[in-house]
């Protein structure tokens, strides 16, 4: 599997020219996740934060957040993710003979509840990362355009005027 990050490194090592390098196609739109991983993770994240009047986790970009950090600050969780996502599909196939991404919303909910019971460590990891991505700063890829802050009624950026003081005298001009 050639994801974007691995691809950039590979092309640099091979010393491939600019045109030749960029013309090659990667297999995944993600930096770490494969397309299949991404579909499975979407299914889980969107149970943790489903859509209502406001977007679901994946609609708000939570996958971008998790995917980017898996090759950055969350590198140490790479294995846990791969194992956890495989386990999620295993559960789904055993119970419904379907990959998790293909299951119905009802079935997805059942599987995610099962993950919470059977694989709590992985569930807590995904839960905390999902909430971080959804409610955290948009610069990291989640909370697209600050949508969760708007949902909570926060004005962003807040309106704050600058001080009108004469600092030399400490008084208002």
């Amino acid at each position: 599997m050639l994801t974007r990050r691995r691809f950039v490194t590979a092309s640099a090592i091979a010393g491939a020219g600019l045109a030749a390098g960029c013309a090659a196609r990667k297999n995944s739109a993600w930096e770490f996740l494969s397309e299949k991983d991404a579909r499975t993770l979407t299914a889980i994240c969107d149970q943790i934060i489903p859509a209502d009047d406001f977007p679901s986790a994946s609609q708000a970009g939570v996958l971008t957040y998790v995917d980017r950090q898996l090759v950055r600050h969350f590198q140490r969780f790479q294995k846990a993710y791969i194992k956890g996502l495989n386990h999620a599909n295993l559960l789904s196939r055993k119970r419904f003979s379907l990959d998790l991404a293909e299951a119905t919303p009802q079935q997805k909910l059942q599987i995610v509840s099962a993950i919470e019971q059977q694989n709590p460590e992985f569930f807590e990891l995904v839960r905390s990362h999902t909430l971080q991505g959804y409610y955290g700063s948009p610069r990291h890829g989640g909370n697209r355009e600050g949508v969760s802050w708007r949902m909570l009624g926060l004005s962003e950026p807040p309106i704050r005027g600058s001080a009108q003081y004469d600092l030399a005298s400490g008084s208002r001009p």
Partner: protein
Amino acid sequence: MKRWLIICGFAICSVTLLAVGVTQGASLYYAAGHGAACADCHEMAEYASAVHSSPHDNATCTDCHQASLFTRLRHIQVHLAGSAPETIRLREVDVRQMIANCKSCHEHEYASWRAGPHSATYTEIFADPAHISKRGLMDDCFRCHGMYFDGAIRDLVQPQNTRGPWHLSHPELAGQPTIPCQACHWIHREGPPETKPPARISVAGPIVPQSLGFFDRREGMHFAAATLAIPTLYDGPRQLKASPDQRQAICYQCHAPRLPEANSTAAANHWGPQAGSGDDRTPMGVHEGLSCFSCHNSHNESARASCATCHPEMSHCGLDVEKMDTTYANPASKHNIHWVKCTDCHQHGLPRVKCVVTVAAR
């Protein structure tokens, strides 16, 4: 000797050819896929796809992002070295270079901006003794001036005190604008082409254009004007009538009120944020309820001509408003045009009978 010349000439030619070829090659490559190929490697798919559903759809990337030769060579160098970053963003210098490209299509808006105070330069904002000695230097200055500057305030101006004399650590920025087009315009924003706002005065204002967005330096992204807040303001204890024109939200990001401060009358009386505090210019008095855009053109904030859209027809007292003692007639007047009230002059109450003096038609 002749042979040496030939070799030399050949070498010069090939280096030039290589340089031109490589630079143009990159540009062509860039342009060819409408940026799509670039987005394969760089974290920019969102931008590339958004621009296709924006009013700038028929522009190619390089129409706006035409970088200098030096920048292009740098791009080639980092690509060959394999050190091209995945997440690319505009540096201050890239933003500046784009302004010229904006100008090539939006000449009128450019000229208007250039003539107004929103094109203030780094020197005018960050090395003006009258200003800094009073207000001090802080990172928050960049919220509204130099929002694309790559660094902290101490990287731009020294010394960091209120005594000076100050100098810019980046002399190349001296004459450059601190509020570029991209401060308020979100070029990649999806949406239909902007329609010209109606010329007549409007309190409600038109629907806010999609491409209007405030660049928030902290997040490194624009927030759409449609989602920005308009503050609820007070004149003493009384809540002000506010125009619902959502376009103003972008003005309020910088022309913002302060919360009541320690030792202030407003704080002592538990009043809300006061109109006219901080950098706020929300109209009170005779102009209460008007939108910023009722009087101000968005690119050049000069509002002098706009009076004629309402006056003299709408003069309450039949006097020539342009000759009254306000900052319109005299910038030193204590009656700021934003919050001049009838009672500023009629301190004992308004005349019961409306004046019938007619101002001669101009």
